[in-house]
C-alpha cells in the first residue's frame, strides 16, 4: 500500500472529512432527530451525550452489546482455574497429609473457585468493555467539533459519519439543520 494509506491506517494521515455533526439541548429532541435522519436513509449514525439517552439506540440503530457472552466464558474459566490449581497442588505436585483429609476434595475448592469466577468475570467485563469500545483512544476526529466539549456537560450531539454512502457534506448538514440541530458543522480530522 502507499505511504499515505499506511499513515491513514495507523491514524496519522492527512485530515479528511469525518462527519457532519449537530447539537440539541435535550435528549428527547436528539432521539427524535435521530429517528428522522435514519428514516432519510442514513445508516452510519452516532450520538454523543453526557449520559446514556434512553431510546437513542433504537433511533439510530446501535446494535445490542455482546459483552455478556464474553463474561460468561471468562467466569467459567475462572472456576476451572481454581479447581485445577487446587487439584494439581494437593493431589499431584506435592502430596502432604493435612489434618487427615484427602489430598483433593471438591468441598474445599468452593470458596476459591467462587472468588476466581468473580475476579475473572470482573476483568472480562471491564477490559472487554473498553476493548469493544476501542478505547482508550486519546484522539478522535469528533473532538474537532466546536461543541464537542459540551457533550459531557449539557449538549446532545448527532453524528452522521462521512463513510455513510449517502453522505454529502452540504446536503447532510442541511438535513441535520432540517431535523432541528444547532451548530451544525462538517468536522474534519
Amino acid at each position, binding site marked *: 500500500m502507499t505511504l499515505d494509506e499506511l499513515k491513514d491506517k495507523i*491514524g*496519522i494521515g492527512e485530515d479528511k472529512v469525518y462527519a457532519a455533526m449537530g447539537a440539541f439541548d435535550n435528549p428527547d429532541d436528539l432521539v427524535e432527530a435521530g429517528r428522522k435522519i435514519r428514516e432519510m436513509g442514513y445508516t452510519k449514525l452516532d450520538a454523543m451525550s453526557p449520559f446514556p439517552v434512553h431510546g437513542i439506540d433504537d433511533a439510530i440503530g446501535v446494535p445490542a452489546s455482546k459483552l455478556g457472552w464474553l463474561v460468561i466464558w471468562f467466569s467459567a474459566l475462572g472456576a476451572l482455574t481454581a479447581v485445577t490449581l487446587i487439584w494439581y497442588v494437593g493431589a499431584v505436585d*506435592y502430596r502432604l497429609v493435612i489434618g487427615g483429609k484427602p489430598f483433593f476434595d471438591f468441598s474445599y475448592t468452593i470458596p476459591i473457585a467462587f472468588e476466581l469466577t468473580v475476579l475473572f468475570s470482573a476483568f472480562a467485563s471491564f477490559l472487554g468493555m473498553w476493548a469493544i469500545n476501542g478505547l482508550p483512544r486519546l*484522539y478522535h476526529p469528533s473532538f474537532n467539533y466546536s461543541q464537542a466539549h459540551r457533550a459531557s456537560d449539557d449538549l446532545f450531539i448527532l453524528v452522521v459519519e462521512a463513510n455513510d454512502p449517502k453522505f454529502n457534506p452540504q446536503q447532510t448538514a442541511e438535513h441535520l439543520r432540517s431535523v432541528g440541530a444547532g451548530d451544525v458543522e462538517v468536522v474534519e480530522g
Partner: protein
Amino acid sequence: MAVIFPKSSDIILKVAGAVAGIGAVIAVAAFTYYTYPTVIDTGYQPVQPVPYSHKLHAGQLGLDCYYCHSTVYKAAFAAVPATSTCMNCHTQVKKDSPRLEPVRQSYATGKPVPWVQIHRLPDYVYFNHSAHLSAGVSCVSCHGRIDQMIEVHQEKPLNMAMCLECHRDPAPNVRPANLVTKLDWVPDRDPREIGAEIVAQKHLDPPTNCSGCHR
C-alpha cells in the same frame, strides 16, 4: 474545543504499550532464570589455599573417597581430612613442593588449613551422609564427577526440589552399596532397573514429609 492530544498520540500510545509489555515479559523471564537454583547455586568454585586436585588423587591415583572423607559411612557429616592424613603420603611424595607449603605449615604448627567450604546446606536442613550411603546413593548424585574436577566446584543445585526429586523416585540414583564411591561406574544395563531392584530389596522408602529433613 481544543483537541488535547495530537493525532499521533494513539499510535505512540500503542507502540509504548507494546514495548512496555514485551519489556515486562523479558524482565520476569530474566528474574526467574537468574534466581533459578540450578543457575545461581551451581558452579561455585572458590580458590582453595592449596590447589588440591581431586582429578589427580581420586581420578588418576584412584584413591577411594573414603580414604580421606573417612566418616561418611558412620556419621551424618563427611569429614574433611586432617592434615596428618595428607602427610601420610606427602612426607615422602613431593615433600618439598612449594604448593604444599600450607599443608606442611599446618602439620608443624597445628593450625588448620583453611579450606573453603563448597557444598553447603541451610542450618535447618539435616542431611545425613551415612543414611544415603547405606541406601546406596552414590557421591556422584549430589557432588557430580569429583574425580574429573581439578579444583572442585558445586555441580548440583542442592535445593529442596532436587532432594524431593530423588526422594520421590530414588531408583535412578540407587546403586549397589559397594559401588557408591566408584564415581566412574558404568552400569551394564539401565541403572533405573538396578536401582529399582535394590529399592525393592532394601525396602527403601525415602521420606517426603517435613520432619524427614527439618527438625
